[in-house]
């Protein structure tokens, strides 16, 4: 397996509050890695820091052999590291198809000038069809985000990230707000992604989903990694049970 992402000693502080405290994490090609932790454990800060939203973070991030330190969000996306949002954040004024197109297309300055007179042929048509089919959005493509159900909006957010054909997607609570059936269906879709060359870092509260689909899991609390390992190891880890599961065993 080749190493895809290598995070060393990532640190994020807001003033005196340390949100992410020297977290190290690796993801190999074809892996689905989980990141779990209680509310306020620093999960979203971790994703923000990886995708260029927090400029003065500590530590180093290496993606596909290249450093992501000090890169702007758009450059990180162009290197094939995409993310989804806890609050979906679709472009409300565009249809689902156009949302996907925005991610899939990469206009140059020349094509931007040409767009005034003779629009270039839509690019990335295959990528968009692939992403929308994978997320079961084919019937919703020409609708606006406001016309979709909450679950569909979540999926549209995932599809938008996938439409760029990324190497790695960071998913911030993609299953939050989905019902159990939807969550299971979503897990199945997720499992098929490595077969398409996409690795995943899954951040979620839904223990069943995370334990069910992930190859490896990191557990963080108060900004630090308190445990890591396979789902089986995590289930049996005393510190995890204490910090996150509140002493209860979880049925898979």
């Amino acid at each position: 397996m080749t190493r895809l992402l290598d995070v060393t000693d990532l640190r994020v502080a807001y003033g005196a509050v340390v949100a992410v405290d020297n977290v190290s994490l690796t993801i190999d090609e074809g892996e689905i890695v989980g990141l779990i932790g209680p509310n306020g454990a620093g999960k979203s800060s971790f994703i923000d820091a990886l995708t260029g939203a927090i400029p003065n973070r500590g530590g180093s991030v290496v993606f596909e052999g290249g450093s992501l330190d000090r890169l702007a969000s758009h450059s990180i996306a162009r290197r094939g590291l995409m993310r989804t949002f806890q609050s979906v954040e679709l472009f409300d004024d565009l249809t689902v198809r156009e949302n996907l197109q925005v991610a899939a297309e990469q206009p140059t300055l020349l094509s931007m000038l040409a767009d005034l007179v003779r629009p270039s042929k839509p690019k990335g048509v295959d990528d968009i069809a692939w992403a929308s089919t994978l997320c079961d959005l084919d019937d919703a493509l020409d609708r606006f985000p406001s016309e979709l159900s909450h679950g569909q909006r979540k999926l549209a957010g995932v599809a938008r990230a996938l439409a760029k054909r990324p190497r790695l997607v960071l998913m911030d609570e993609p299953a939050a707000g989905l019902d159990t059936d939807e969550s299971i269906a979503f897990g199945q879709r997720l499992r098929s992604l490595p077969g398409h060359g996409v690795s995943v870092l899954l951040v979620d509260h839904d223990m069943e989903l995370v334990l069910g689909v992930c190859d490896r899991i990191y557990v963080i609390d108060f900004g630090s990694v308190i445990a890591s390992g396979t789902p089986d190891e995590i289930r049996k880890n005393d510190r995890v049970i204490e910090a996150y599961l509140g002493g209860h065993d979880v049925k898979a």
Partner: protein
Amino acid sequence: MSAFLLFVLLGLGAGSVYALLGLGLVLKYRSTGVIDFAHGAIAMFSAYVFVNLRSTGVLELPWPVIPHEIPLTAGGQAMDLAPALVITLVYGTVLGLLLFLGVYRPLLQASPLTKVCASVGVMLFLEATAVLNFGTTSLASSPILPSEPIRLAGIAFPSDRIYLAGIVIVVAAVLLVVYRWTKFGLATRASAENETGAALIGISPVSVAGRNWVIASFLAAGSGILITPISSLDPTSYTLFVVPALGAALIGRFQSFGWTAVAGLGLGIVQSELIKLQTIFTWLPQQGLSDGVPFVIILITMTLSARRLGARGNAGTWRNPRLGRPSRPLLTSIITFVIGLIILVLLQGSLRAAFMSSIITMCICLSLVLLSGFIGQVSLAQMSFVGMGAFILSHLAGDLGIPFPFSLILSALLVVPIGILIGLPALRVRGVSLAVVTLATAAAMDALVFSNVGFTGGLGGRKVAPPSLFGLNLGISDGKIYPTITFGVLLLVIVVFVGYCVARLRTSATGRMMIAVRSNERAAAYMGIRVAPLKLYGFALSAFIAGIGGGLLAYQQGTVSSSSFAVFTSLTVLAITYVAGIGRIAGAVIAGLMFSSDGLFVSFLDDVIHVGQYQMIVAGIALAITAIGNPNGVASEMAGEKGIALRIVKLRDRVFPTSKPPALSPQPVIAVAKVRK
């Protein structure tokens, strides 16, 4: 040295007014999120009321035509200072409260752009009413504050400046204390911070806002009265006081009373010192320096520091104006061209000229559809681009003798760097702050560039050589007929082509990126969009289109003069485009035909029912009402389910049927929709 001190002290006069108006703007913004461009107009109107009471004892009501004069003294005697003061202060306060209840209260949850347009409507209305009721000749007024000279450090200066500055300091201090330590101040700060939260703990944001407006209007009326002895009174220049006041409020981040007061006084002093400097250094530009430099300072500080405006948590979740979705732009363009041609041939004389004005306005509005509609960047400097285009063309075609169409294209291209320059602050500031920064730019351009006699030909303006191609005269006049059909065709060809390009852009990859940035800048960056170059690209394109509009305007007028591009013309253009539908090509068309003040519809009304002198008043009221009633614009309404636009589109598609390719629907990779546990 003492001469410089004298000018510092003299500058306190205007500075005090900027400060007092600025404080009122802060109050209004903090309590309602409205940047009230009509704030200066309220001061102006109150000043007129005061001057009239003091000279003839007549109370002037804020409307034209229907009786608006109430004599309060017997036989037209002048009223004493004290009652005149009290009546005017009450008058200004009530006027502000009525405007709040009638216009701004219904807009509390509206988008910032809607609020801007409504306040522009109010401003136009008050200014036009003042012009009708009081005329445009400047009035002087007797002093209110004691103004016998004071001697200090060897110089003599009028003492009222010291009193004025004292009033500003006292007002700012009182506001500071009230908003920091009283329950009312706490409620205001709470509802500015989080409207929903404040409502939940029993604070009524509407009543808080209303009370703040009362205070702000009181201050506006007060500053209107105080300035009359210092600056001669006329409708336009008093209304324009709002621009430096906005600058002061901006430096105070629309939040800090102290900084706003200091900035207002500072702006006044800088202006005054610049006048002194002009007399010493004769190589300095002799026009506009004192008016322009403060705005340059504001511009630079805002761009470099990129400070956000004070927090305003709004309970409403407003949406951007709806966008159009042009289908079959080529066909629509051809049909539009043919219809335009028919109108051109059918109309004659002044109405044909008015139709030409409409077409040119459409071009200018298209530049805003692209910039504010698609990318969501508010620009209040659009007419500055237009003016630059017009004057550059007059130089290129005149002195340099560059032939049409190269002169037109080159002049528009030369406007592009200016557009990019004005777009630079947009990389740091957003929304309402951007609106104010671009307004400061427009004011700076007005004072520094458009007052330059060498560039703009001064009051007489500059002549523009008519366009000709292969020896064929395309100008608006051929010696016998005015205006010629050939010139109309030229306009139609160019503007329809611009409209076609903007429509094409809307459905292209670039257009989608622009709309993505408008919807959610943060998410757009995460999707790999370079937001900053895209915004600058939008400013560049918009400036180019506006520059073309300027060139066409120059050809139409024959002689361009800088008065056509004064600061508030940009506000009007944004407002009419917004009201007509800023997210649509059709919006630009409607703005040009229906709302443009020298356009076809208004000229037609003028011909039939002679609305001429009331035109601005009608425009102002229409603007405010449309902003309140129809935040998506007229074109959006027409494009609705039963709208006329949909019928036109259906008619078009019936006459020119299209064969649609079958929709692609690949089978899902995963057929699992729902799995039972």
